[in-house]
């Protein structure tokens, strides 16, 4: 497969592994957070950790959209489908995420709710056009990668005069989440995660650009290397991070320069700014309330806001007890620190969102490194 195989080349991987082993000083550890769940999965899918020294550690970040969505918002979406009788259109990743009472979109669908999996916001618009007598709500979720597509759908709905289409907006922002992980407000400093740098997201960065990370680096003094999603991208970025640490530098470097530019996608940024406004604060699973970290639909497009169109009841959703998703999303714990992992909680019977999403770190550990993880857990007990 041209343009992909090059980034999975075994000989290049070996030479990068040698360079990393030479660069990494044996007298210290390196803890790098890959913010994005896509990176977590690339690392596990290709066994990248087998090719780096043991003192280079990957800490998994909160960049998994369905993992950080608090249960209350999922319960709200379920209520829209069940009580308000709308057609709920959603990306497939949401379907199996457990809500309150271990309900999910899949179980709600089986019980008769009209929930449809779509691959793009344009599919949701098509459903709205094809069902003029039904209300269609698109579950908007994701970081800056998926946000522009939601904005486009709202613009198209306005253009076409669609009156039966709205968006339940849960779009979140990357830089405030990184700041929150580093600031760890209200968390005992001993409990906060220690990091030496970040692997910056791939797709998010194509939209927001490398410049978006400069204020963070200036404020916290931790290097960020924007990394592609292929295994060699990850390895090269790790090498760049180790070099920055060893040389005492903290800069934004762009390993993924074949796609990511300094300023990002201006057009995507413009339509996001047009269609959305920043929420004062938004709840994240794991991080809690994070100021200015999420988008709501701007008043000018209020008619497309499902939260205005439908009254959703106040809920007391409670996260599953003893599920370590929150601490795992902060990078403080690893899936192997969760008693449920691989026992009560598996991809088939997930207790927490991190086990469901194809970007969740529990799913990565279970899918790709289950035997080792369970053995380590047993040894620790």
């Amino acid at each position, binding site marked *: 497969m041209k343009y992909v195989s090059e980034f999975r080349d075994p000989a290049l991987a070996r030479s990068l592994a040698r360079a990393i082993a030479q660069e990494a000083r044996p007298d210290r550890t390196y803890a790098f957070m890959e913010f994005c769940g896509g990176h977590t999965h690339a690392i596990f899918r290709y066994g990248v950790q087998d090719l780096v020294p043991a003192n280079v550690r990957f800490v998994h970040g909160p960049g998994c959209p369905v993992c950080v969505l608090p249960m209350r918002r999922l319960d709200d979406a379920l209520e829209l489908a069940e009580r308000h009788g709308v057609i709920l259109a959603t990306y497939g*990743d949401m379907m199996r995420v457990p809500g309150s009472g271990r309900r999910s979109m899949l179980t709600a669908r089986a019980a008769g709710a009209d929930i449809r999996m779509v691959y793009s916001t344009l599919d949701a618009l098509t459903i709205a056009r094809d069902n003029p007598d039904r209300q269609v709500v698109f579950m908007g979720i994701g970081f800056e990668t998926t946000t522009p597509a939601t904005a486009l759908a709202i613009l198209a709905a306005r253009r076409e005069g669609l009156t039966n289409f709205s968006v339940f907006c849960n779009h979140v922002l990357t830089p405030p989440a990184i700041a929150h992980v580093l600031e760890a407000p209200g968390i005992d400093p001993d409990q906060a995660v220690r990091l030496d740098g970040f692997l910056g997201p791939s797709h998010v960065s194509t939209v927001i650009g490398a410049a978006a990370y400069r204020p963070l680096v200036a404020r916290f003094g931790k290097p960020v290397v924007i990394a592609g999603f292929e295994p060699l991208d990850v390895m090269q970025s790790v090498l760049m991070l180790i070099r920055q640490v060893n040389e005492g530098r903290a800069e934004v470097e762009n390993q993924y320069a074949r796609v990511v530019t300094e300023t990002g996608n201006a057009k995507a940024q413009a339509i996001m700014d047009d269609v959305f406004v920043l929420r004062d604060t938004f709840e994240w699973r794991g991080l809690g309330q994070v100021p200015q970290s999420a988008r709501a639909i701007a008043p000018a497009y209020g008619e497309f806001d499902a939260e205005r169109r439908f009254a959703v009841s106040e809920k007391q959703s409670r996260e599953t007890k003893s599920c370590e998703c929150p601490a795992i999303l902060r990078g403080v714990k690893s899936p192997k620190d969760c008693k449920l992992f691989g026992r009560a909680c598996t991809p088939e019977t997930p207790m927490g969102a991190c086990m469901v999403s194809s970007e969740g770190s529990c799913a990565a550990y279970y899918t790709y490194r289950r035997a080792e993880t369970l053995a380590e857990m047993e040894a620790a007990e």
Partner: protein
Amino acid sequence: MSRLLRPGATVEMAHGGGGLATTRLVREIFARHFANPILAQGHDAARIEAPSGRLVMTTDAHVVSPLEFPGGDIGSLAVHGTINDVAMGGAQPIALSAAFIIEEGFPLETLDRIAQSMGRAARDAGVPIVTGDTKVVERGHGDGVYIATTGIGVVPEGVTIAPENIAPGMAILVSGTLGDHGVAILSRRQGLEFSTTIASDSAALHRMVADMVAAVPDIAVLRDPTRGGLSATLNELAEAAGVTMTLDEAAIPVRPEVAGACELLGLDPMHIANEGKLVCICPADRAQDVLDVMRSHPEGRDAALIGTVGDRAAPGTPGLLRMTTLIGGTRVVDWLAGEPLPRIC
């Protein structure tokens, strides 16, 4: 043109009522396309000369959507699928049955085309469809047409195919490229249409299997990696045999078009269905012989050695499927949980 197949005609409830309309449907569509001497007996039960030796029997329900796809349709798929299930017992198929559940309002012209394709697949495979049944369900109670096929076959002397034969050190082979069928189907699914040159690999494998077991009777296991793909098949076998298996990712044949489609959709070719491929586990010193036989058949042209059976799993732990990745790392190859869902970003 028969009276039944006038333009625009559809299946009506009466076609499943057992009366004249049913007889006409059976005669003008099924009997015409499936024509063979045993079916022509016209009895409620087909009479077949009993072969000597061990019989295998298998059944399979087909509910594919869309009904027609690049490289085949539900009719040819129903024939190939059941023939392959018989063949995976090391057996040679001798007869098939076919039951149709048809939705009221289904175009007779499409039914005729599917039956014709089914008849052609059976004839090409040399396996007659000897008996069948037709039911019609009300509109909205089915998805066009469902076909259930049953097959029986005879196992040659000296061949015993069973997971308990799997032993450490054995070789794991596949007969060709993975994921062709699943991606061909996905490319035509509603809401996901994309243009591709990939056709389903749907094919009958019994002739290749006959030559394989004749050349190497001590083949341990044959399986066709259909739903759930290669990972489901090998996980099942690793668990049944209580062994660890290790695959070499670089050796697994996948067409570039399939790999590309999977990249885009966030799917893994290891999880995608195949309908004309088999997995064979055999003693390592016979692997080359089996490969040579497979490669001498068009359906085994791209056969490859993809891994080995490792040690017995520790007592109390299930078998495990592992992989050496392209870049030389290692990982578990998991079953797919739930249906394949596309990723968000």
